[in-house]
């Protein structure tokens, strides 16, 4: 009689696989990120591919069946289209000024509200109010209540000071200024929140050490705080560029791109070309150029910012 005990070796056969520590679990990973990737492909990748493909055709929205392959013809046409070039220029100015202004203001507000003071929570909450408002509604309020030429608050205040205010949204360069003001007002809270969170995460001992070494407030900000915020700043700038270069609703509501195309940015140009004038292929070519421009600028900032960051931290 043979008996089997638990001490006996297991029967011959394939050895059970031992999960290696740190090895990817492809099955579980696919299950978790698969739906997200699929959604991304449907809502982002496919439309982008479609936009690129359609930009190679002379294709009109009101005659979708009749399309002619023109290769890079639409892109060559863009290069000599004064309206498109103007829109690219306006977009550049708008994005540069808006990103810079929100970055400076948001960072300053975060620095100013870093130290504890009575009512800090309330101030923080109030500073984020613009961000939670609907852009179209708040833009209409700005347009009619603040920037209306005859009955607006801004010109009324200027009038008290004996200054004749301009017709803000009907003249230049005030129309561009108004959309910048509204966008800065709208987007500064986002920068403030990011910078505020980043400041909270900074190691206090480093700042204290600088203080003990005799560094003044602005010296500490310039030489200690801002360098430590570099990664956050790079992220914020990239994020803000992608938002502002694609800005549509504020400008559409505030000026509609006018007067005389002075505030027509590339998104409005694409909208008008593709959906109002029905040049779908041509409009999409403009959209692809916008995407490439924004992508290139962001990549350049990322490369420069990250490289510099690695050099500073000694990483390779």
């Amino acid at each position: 009689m043979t008996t089997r005990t638990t001490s006996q070796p297991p029967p011959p056969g394939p050895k059970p696989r031992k999960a290696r520590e740190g090895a990817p679990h492809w099955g579980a990973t696919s299950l978790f990120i698969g739906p997200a990737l699929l959604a991304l492909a449907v809502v982002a990748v496919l439309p982008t591919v479609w936009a690129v493909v359609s930009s190679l055709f002379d294709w009109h929205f009101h005659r979708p069946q009749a399309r002619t392959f023109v290769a890079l013809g639409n892109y060559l046409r863009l290069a000599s289209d004064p309206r498109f070039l103007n829109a690219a220029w306006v977009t550049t100015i708008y994005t540069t000024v808006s990103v810079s202004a929100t970055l400076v203001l948001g960072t300053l507000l975060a620095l100013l509200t870093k130290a504890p003071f009575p009512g800090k929570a309330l101030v923080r909450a109030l500073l984020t109010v613009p961000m939670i408002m609907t852009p179209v509604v708040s833009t209409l309020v700005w347009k009619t209540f603040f920037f209306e030429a005859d009955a607006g608050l801004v010109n009324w205040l200027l009038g008290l000071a004996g200054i004749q205010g301009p017709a803000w949204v009907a003249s230049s360069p005030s129309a561009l200024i108004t959309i910048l003001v509204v966008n800065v007002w709208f987007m500064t809270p986002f920068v403030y929140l990011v910078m505020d969170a980043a400041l909270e995460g900074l190691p206090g001992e480093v700042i204290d050490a600088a203080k003990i070494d005799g560094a003044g407030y602005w010296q500490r900000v310039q030489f200690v705080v801002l360098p430590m915020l570099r990664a956050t700043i790079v992220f914020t700038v990239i994020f803000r560029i992608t938002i502002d270069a694609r800005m549509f609703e504020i400008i559409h509501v505030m000026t509609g791109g006018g007067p005389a195309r002075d505030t027509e940015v590339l998104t409005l140009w694409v909208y008008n070309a593709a959906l109002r004038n029905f040049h779908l292929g041509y409009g999409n070519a403009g959209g692809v150029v916008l995407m490439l421009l924004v992508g290139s600028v962001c990549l350049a900032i990322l490369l420069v910012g990250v490289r510099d960051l690695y050099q500073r931290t000694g990483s390779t």
Partner: protein
Amino acid sequence: MKRYSTVRRYGIVTLAVTLLLAFGTTLTVAQERPHEGAVVTIGDLARGISDAYLPFLPAFEAETGIRVDVEQLSFDALFDKMMLEFAARTGYYDIVYLSPGFMATLIDAGYVITLDEYFDDHGIDLDQFLAAAIDINRYGPDDAIWAYPYLADTSVFLYRSDLFEDPDERAAFLERYGYELPIPTVDDPMNTDEFLDVAEFFTRDGMYGFAYPQGGTAYGNLSILPWIWTFGGEYYDADFNATLDDPRVVEAFRFAQELQQSQPAGALAWDYGDHIPMLCDGRLAMTAGWFHIGLDANNPDVCPAVAGSVGYAPPPYAPESGLDHGFTVLGGGGLAITADSADPDAAFTFLSWLFADEERALEWYLSGGAATLSALYDAPEVLDAWPWAADFFPVANYLLATTTKQRPTVPNSHEIFEVMAETWHNVALGRLTPEEAARSAHSRVDALLSMIR
């Protein structure tokens, strides 16, 4: 056995009669309700005249068995959505609002159908409609009708009669300009020189002589087009060659530029209705607006500060044009039936049921709709409901019959309007002289027209 046969015979006869009755009734119902179960989807602008027909839908469904669904959207949202539906050939909409600015594009693309045959088949007498309400929906060499009459509109000129009749104002005007302050009427409209003088005269602290919306593509174009017509110009000729490099067009730009001096600078960015607050506040001596704005100006519930003091006038005329009247743009639009509609006859049945029936059309009009039937336009019931409108209708009738013109309608109209709006804005901002504007607009519009010649 005989009894059984009799019973059977009676039974068969009864059954046959019952079947015949049932079949006959079904036939009758089918004839009366040929579209039973059909669903008609309308894409319309979100505004008063579409709100006003919503209450009629249950009665129409009860009577015909056709359910009508209405989507009310802003102009941009409706236009974008319907173009996507059209391009994808979904047949989602059976009826869409047809704006004259895009009419040719949709017709050219084959997205909407002509309604002439439907009017004939349904026995709808076209003469019962205001001519302008039909004309705005006509297009093509055979003047086919592409949409059901829904809204016929144009700009009526409004002036503050209390100011114009004020003895002190009249004396001051006479002293400054050397002639009597003209009170414009249908028989004796102001000319363009007088119009500029009057606008200038009333421009003073807290008041502007004239103002109307000029912002964006739509109103930028609408603010220069009628002046070009008034001075005898046109955008293009019958062969689709641009005709803008023309002294009459230069004069129109010059006139508009001069008139701009009497307007609030912000008007250059005003959109639809943005001048109403100033009008109702009493800060405009003259303005121009669509019919409902003209009606509202004297409605004490809407504009209490100026109600009863607003006169109606035709546009000024330019003596150098050789014409005795100016021009206004025919506005409004129609309800078109889409080419992909599953049941276009059901769609037409709804339109006729509501808009060609005097009783319903009157009820629709009085509850915020529009008048497209001639009989209703200034019917006694309307005057009873809106006593302040008595002076409005004679002028409105004159405008629709005499001064209105269909805006230039070609498949790429919108691009032409963009050019004209931009050119006018550049003139108003002082970047282009009237001569430069005419030349620039001419070459750009001609390039666009070359695509369709």
